[in-house]
């Protein structure tokens, strides 16, 4: 019994796009890793006390720790070449990689002239962007 199953079209051209997207993702993660590592190393470089001082840890990881997490404070920190600022940039890049992935998928569906899924992926993208703004609004 043959069934007429409607399978989504996957022309080989889209396979290439998907490959590029995967590559983009991995580059994004690598870039983020670079920022995370350099930022952490820089923090230790600027604070040699971190290697021997037993009293500073509480300020760094305790509930009352302070670190940049709004756009202004992050840019400030990066401008002053603070390690934690660079780490935060790395974290931001990392959080953005899936968002880019969804944006790319939206384009692919749009190219395929698949209206329903262009809308669906756009909604997901919108939700992701909304989460970024929602976060800002919590200030």
């Amino acid at each position: 019994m043959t069934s007429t199953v409607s399978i989504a079209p996957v022309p080989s051209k889209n396979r290439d796009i998907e490959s590029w997207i995967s590559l983009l993702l991995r580059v994004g993660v690598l870039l983020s890793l670079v920022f995370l590592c350099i930022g952490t190393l820089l923090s230790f470089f600027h604070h040699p006390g971190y290697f021997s001082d037993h009293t500073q840890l509480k300020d760094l990881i305790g509930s009352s720790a302070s670190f940049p997490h709004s756009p202004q404070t992050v840019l400030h920190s990066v401008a002053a070449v603070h390690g934690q600022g660079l780490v935060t940039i790395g974290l931001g890049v990392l959080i953005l990689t899936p968002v880019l992935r969804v944006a790319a998928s939206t384009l692919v569906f749009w190219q395929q002239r698949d209206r329903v899924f262009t809308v669906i992926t756009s909604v997901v993208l919108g939700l992701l962007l909304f989460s970024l703004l929602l976060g800002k609004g919590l200030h």
Partner: protein
Amino acid sequence: MTPFQFCLETFAISMVAGLLGSLLGLGGGTIVVPALTLLFGLDIRYAVGASIVSVIATSSGAAAAYVKEHLTNLRVAMLLELGTTTGALAGALIAGLINPRWLYIIFGLMMGYSAISMLRVRHIAAVSQEPDVWADRLKLHGAYYDEALGHVVKYKVTRPGIGIVLMFVAGMVSGLLGIGSGALKVLAMDLAMRLPIKVSTATSNFMIGVTAAASAAVYFARGDINPFIAAPVAVGVLFGATAGSRLLPKLHNQSIRLTFVVVLLWVSAQMFLKGVHA
């Protein structure tokens, strides 16, 4: 403890978590959060924040993810993302409002469930032949090349509506606890929607990163992602998971898995009790 010691130890523990996670098919998050809270006494919100970042790292960066791309059913993934993303947002917001002790309790329960589900034998479901109007309309059905079988396998998808609802729950759990909740996602796709195992695994892997990004943004702006903690955790879990997926085959030996299940159940109990006694 000096900051340097903390950084080093956190990195090491995260690597182990990533390694174990990839060996057992559990996310690194499920191991990292208890490790950070029970061993280091870290505020659970920082632990969850750091864990979410590491989940994105492994989801986007894992070399295996690329291979699985061709197995991922992108349409099902994006459709279900409607559920997980809304759930993740809700979970992330709620996490900031409720008393942290509930996070411990829910984490303990969720971790217990994940541990037990490791023992579940996943049946290769017969390809569903039931017609599903929505699945047909949305063209969710797919096909993939099964290397083990050596030919293309076609499959049909059913009950996407239930799938979305289950995904909302999975997303919410992910937003609350900072884990990938792959166990829940795979459950929904296996049982509710009848996707083949390889497809549901690959699709789940893809979705996990997007879901985590939704909650991560909220945690980040709320100041729950501490860079000093998140950096070694993200890098450590990523290294561990990548090494694990490349160097070691997935652990299938049931008796060894059983040992891990017992250990994980014990840890889940610790988390649960920590929440109860808080």
